């Protein structure tokens, strides 16, 4: 196992930060290239006129998922040292519902709002400022509701653990759903522009 590099070798703070900027730069570049710094393009997903959000997101998920799986399979990447976002079922369900309202209203998400703002869009800048305000208010409020914030804590639980299916089978399913979704997305766009 030679990866994750930062875990296997001890990187200095400056190295970690430099890598952070470099990875973020590539991330922001990819988002802007795809057109996801444009709220007009993003909301097309929800009005079913432009499904770029789905296509980009699922191409990315499938690519990274397959990469992680095969690098783990061949012993290059130590999966036990990759941080899996932890599951807190109720706050993530409610958080998703609240977040979705914001996603549709703002036409951007926190990351793409930063890209929109960086390319001169004032609506993107407004969204960035208000994401910060929302985070601040929610952070101060949740101090009074720690039971909700920590509800249904499952740790770094994966779909494999709750379905009993091996990762390989789940990956096969996700790839299948993505390919089917791409075909549907193309058909929906053709219909919208007919």
């Amino acid at each position: 196992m030679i990866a994750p590099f930062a875990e296997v070798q001890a990187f200095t703070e400056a190295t970690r930060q430099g890598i952070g900027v470099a990875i973020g730069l590539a991330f922001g570049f990819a988002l802007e290239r795809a057109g996801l710094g444009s709220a007009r393009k993003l909301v097309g997903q929800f009005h079913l006129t432009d499904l770029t959000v789905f296509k980009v997101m699922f191409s990315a998920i499938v690519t990274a998922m397959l990469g992680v799986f095969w690098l783990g399979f061949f012993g290059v990447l130590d999966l036990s040292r990759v941080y899996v976002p932890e599951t807190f079922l109720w706050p993530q369900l409610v958080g998703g519902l609240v977040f979705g309202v914001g996603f549709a209203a703002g036409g951007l998400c926190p990351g793409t709002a930063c890209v929109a703002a960086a390319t001169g869009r004032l609506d993107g800048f407004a969204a960035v400022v208000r994401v910060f305000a929302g985070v601040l208010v929610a952070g101060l409020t949740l101090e009074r509701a720690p039971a909700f914030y920590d509800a249904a804590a499952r740790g770094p639980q994966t779909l494999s653990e709750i379905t009993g299916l091996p990762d390989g089978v789940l990956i096969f399913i996700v790839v299948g759903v993505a390919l089917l979704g791409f075909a549907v997305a193309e058909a929906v766009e053709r219909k919208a522009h007919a």
Partner: protein
Amino acid sequence: MGPDRGRAYADPYLAGVGLGLVLLTAFVVMGRGLGASGAFASGAASLVGMATPPYAAQSPVFVRYPDGFFREWIVFELAGVVLGGFLSAKLAGRVRVEIERGPHASAPRRMLGAFAGGTFMGVGAVFARGCTSGLALTGGALLSVGAWVFMLATFASAYAVAPLFRKSWR
């Protein structure tokens, strides 16, 4: 829909594979994925920490960012996002100061949407401990249960309320 300025956007599948390779690089090099809202949370934690240290120490949200704004990895990553987004747009001739909206929509209407949207996203991201980047994309690729629950909930509610904001884009 193409941009109203500069060169056309990249093919979405190609851009998506590129984005996936960036995410994979983050996993391989750093052992963690991408993110955005974490940098906002770290900033909020530092701000509250400066104003009222005991308050920040008690908050279950803010205690997750003990390193301070200028030491948190995600803050450097998000600074890169801003640079990368600008660089890409600059190279394609897509940088312009504007309020992006529909041809018949007023600027205040669009700004109101962005203001309200940002607030809801900030609150939702704190509840969920992540946003579309740090939770849905990163956790989605790692088959995290919470990430998929968040992703489905986000899309469901966005589809439900999107018609209310359609006027901003007409």
